[in-house]
């Protein structure tokens, strides 16, 4: 069921020329990119992408600004000419915030990657949002400091994209997630005005109760409310010691009980725990040297990770080892524990994990469907999601089940980033398979909502399919989103077509929303 149908009106060549002409008044020629390759290579991200309909997602041009002022000038021109803007940072997102749906201008912030100020006394660094975390931490290491925002795209995603998606961090249970680590930032509104966003006055303040708390509003909007250009980040001492034990179980239920107990233990250096289900272990036996040789009764895994001073981590580690032992865990050994953990900072799947049901290797694109699910609901969501993917595989080899992880989001074990990894064979992807996929995404989102979960813990929920359920998830809050969008972006130029926000400008929105809320799931 498709409730909102968009017929994108694209700019004519003359209109594009006029836009370029205006942009030349605020940017150098080499900052304005109009060639086909420039545009085709700013059309997609790792989110599910209908390769066969690539051309529909190609922007009209891209710009490479180097400062907040340049970004603001570009946005003002776009607002005046009513041309869509699509903010693009790393373009590594697993949702499609950075994919242009209506053409327009891609504002690519990668050149804004300088370190503006390192404040050792207040433990902050102020950076351009085009900087990558690993590269930043290479610089900070000289001062014994670290910015611990650690997604699976750690070596390639950028601070600005982390803000735009309100990212989730693997070690967030210890250090917080992007929303906790970013203190404040400069932000260009859809009208081209520049605001400084943070708690209260922003700057180097971590907690204020002055005024509305706008920081959350301007994080995770998937580029629909503007562009963050310069951010002040919270820094920590680089940890002295790391411990990352991996344990095996002969059944899922024991592993599940164990991960819950580890997370609830309240160990201060606890940075996270991960539960691997039986499908994930079967999947790892395809090609992971750590798991291929494991005996058949290794069916589920749990890992935990701790960071801190050695004299903190050692006793904490003993405590967690004891809990694991009480839950029937078998320690997988130092080599696997250390090797596997180190590989989780850049754990994007590789296409050759893909298999036909008969076992032939095929290149598949990795799609991580995630939800935020409270601990007690994780098993039910896990079961429901595997059934959905089995339904896809029953019909075709275009889709593959790569198993599930559940990661702690918080230091108390309240909720888990619950993900199912699905392979999609893009070389075979046509309209029929794409429609199957979009429906599966609706079903996956509906299952999460049914169990009291949120559609996404980390990626965002604006992809085709799942987005139809967002009004249901947020309830009246979704209408508040529409009001905010209309107020801040009166001409709907900022990343139009995302998150059903076009409804903010349509008189029939109420009917459409009622249909979405009544008919989905």
């Amino acid at each position, binding site marked *: 069921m498709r409730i909102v149908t968009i017929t994108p009106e694209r700019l004519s060549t003359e209109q594009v020329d006029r836009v370029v002409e205006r942009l030349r008044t605020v940017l150098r020629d080499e900052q304005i990119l109009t060639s086909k390759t420039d545009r085709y290579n700013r059309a997609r991200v790792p989110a599910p992408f209908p390769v066969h309909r690539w051309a529909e997602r190609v922007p009209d041009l891209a710009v490479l600004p180097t400062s907040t002022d340049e970004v603001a000038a570009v946005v003002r021109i776009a607002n005046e000419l009513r041309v869509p803007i699509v903010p693009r940072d790393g373009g590594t997102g697993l949702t499609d915030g950075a994919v242009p749906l209506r053409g327009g201008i891609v504002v690519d912030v990668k050149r804004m990657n300088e370190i503006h100020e390192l404040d050792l006394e207040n433990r902050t660094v102020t950076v351009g949002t085009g900087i990558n975390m*690993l590269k930043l*931490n*290479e610089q900070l*290491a000289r001062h014994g400091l*670290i910015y611990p925002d650690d997604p699976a795209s750690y070596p390639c995603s950028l601070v600005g994209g982390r803000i735009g998606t309100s990212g989730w961090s693997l070690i967030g249970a210890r250090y917080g997630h992007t929303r906790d680590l970013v203190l404040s930032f400069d932000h260009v509104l859809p009208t081209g005005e520049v605001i400084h966003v943070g708690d209260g006055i922003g700057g180097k303040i971590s907690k204020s109760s002055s005024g509305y708390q706008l920081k959350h509003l301007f994080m995770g909007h998937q580029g629909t409310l503007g562009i963050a250009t310069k951010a002040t980040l919270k820094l920590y001492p*680089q*940890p*002295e*010691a*790391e*411990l*990352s*034990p991996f344990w095996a179980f002969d059944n899922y239920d024991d592993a599940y009980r164990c991960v819950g107990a580890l997370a609830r233990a309240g160990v201060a250096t606890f940075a996270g725990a991960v539960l691997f289900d039986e499908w994930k272990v079967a999947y790892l*036996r*395809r*090609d992971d*040297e750590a798991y*291929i*040789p494991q005996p058949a009764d290794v069916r589920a895994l749990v890992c935990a990770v701790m*960071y801190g001073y*050695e004299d903190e*981590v*050692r006793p904490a*580690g*003993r405590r967690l*080892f*004891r809990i694991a*032992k009480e839950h029937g865990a078998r*320690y997988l*050994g*130092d080599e696997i*524990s*250390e*090797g596997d953990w*180190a*590989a989780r*900072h*850049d754990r994007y799947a590789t296409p*050759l994990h893909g*298999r*036909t049901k008969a*076992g*032939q*290797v*095929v*290149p598949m694109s990795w799609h991580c469907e995630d939800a935020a699910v409270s601990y007690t609901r994780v098993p039910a969501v896990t079961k429901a999601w595997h059934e959905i993917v089995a339904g896809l595989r029953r019909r075709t080899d275009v889709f593959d089940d790569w198993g599930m992880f559940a990661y702690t989001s918080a230091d108390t074990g309240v909720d888990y980033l619950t993900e199912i990894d699905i392979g999609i064979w893009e070389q075979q992807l046509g309209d029929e398979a794409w429609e199957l996929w979009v429906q599966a995404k609706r079903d996956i989102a509906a299952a999460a909502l049914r169990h009291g979960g949120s559609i996404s813990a980390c990626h965002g929920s604006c992809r085709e399919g799942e987005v139809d359920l967002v009004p249901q998830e947020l309830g009246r809050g979704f209408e508040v989103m529409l009001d905010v969008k209309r107020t801040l972006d009166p001409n709907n130029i900022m990343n139009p077509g995302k998150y059903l926000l076009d409804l903010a400008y349509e008189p029939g929105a109420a009917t459409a929303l009622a249909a979405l809320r009544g008919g989905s799931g």
Partner: protein
Amino acid sequence: MNRTNGYRYGEQHTPPAPQRVSDVALTTFEHVYEVDPRLMERWVLQQTFPNWDSLRIMNARHDHLDWMHRHFAEKVLTGSELLAEVDAADSSPDS
């Protein structure tokens, strides 16, 4: 000259005899696992892979993982030591 580390085409294209480790995987060099080649006969064919390349990748992987550990923390604590301490405490008479 009795050196052995020069490049020779014949040597590079003669991998060690594979040992089976599962229905879908083999081992060749120490620490190098490989897919059973029968799984790459239809849609994706394997590339020509001289020995040096397999070893280069395997070694680089280990170096990279070590680097990642150092990047995040000064030292890595060894789980087996902590487990031994826990086990020892459990088996001691006062436990």
